[in-house]
């Protein structure tokens, strides 16, 4: 048998679900952030898969941009998380509830 589009989609769907679940369940902001990146990777995988099985390059090119954007996002995100940690000494979500109601 061959590895077809469906396998790609299954895995990317799985990644997406894993990422989403992690985002929902983990308490540590950094880990949540990683899970978000996993969701992005899921989308990337889907794009690559489609791009390959639809014989078009757009998907692959798009992936470059996504990677760049993700990198920038990570840079900013890490900066924020680090700065917050230096003020609060914690990045557990349940401790970050000054803003409410």
């Amino acid at each position, binding site marked *: *048998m*061959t*590895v077809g589009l469906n396998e790609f989609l299954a895995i990317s769907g799985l990644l997406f679900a894993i990422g989403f679940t992690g985002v929902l369940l983990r308490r540590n902001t950094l880990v949540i952030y990683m899970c978000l990146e996993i969701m992005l990777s899921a989308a990337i995988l889907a794009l690559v898969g489609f791009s390959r099985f639809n014989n078009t390059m757009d998907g692959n*090119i798009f992936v470059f941009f996504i*990677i*760049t954007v993700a*990198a*920038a996002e990570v*840079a900013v995100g890490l900066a924020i998380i680090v700065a917050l940690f230096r003020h609060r000494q914690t990045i557990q979500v349940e401790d970050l509830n000054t803003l409410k109601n």
Partner: protein
Amino acid sequence: MELVEYFPILVQILLAFVLAVVILTVSQIFGQKIRRSLTKDSAYECGIPSEGKSHTRFSVKFYVTAMLFILFDIEVVFLYPWALAFRDFLAAGIPILLPVLFFIGVIVLGLFYEMKKGALEWEK
């Protein structure tokens, strides 16, 4: 492609697994038995018990450098397809040089900027 072509990978995984199991069991069988107790298992059998976190926090400068590295590292991504297509495009007379030069120029400007900001000076 045929799943068969993945066979070597399968073999390798199996090998790694088997090897680990074998070594552990063998050592369990032939290694000398020791009486285990809490004191024996603790880090120091004598002297004061260890205190404090095992890992220490390190300077935020690492984060800064790491982020900058990520950014500049990723920008390179765009140069690969460019390099691949460069020759053909140039031959076909498609403007390809100047746009990339502009792109790199912007990145260089960013580099100067962060130098000016002193993000790269380790000692301060």
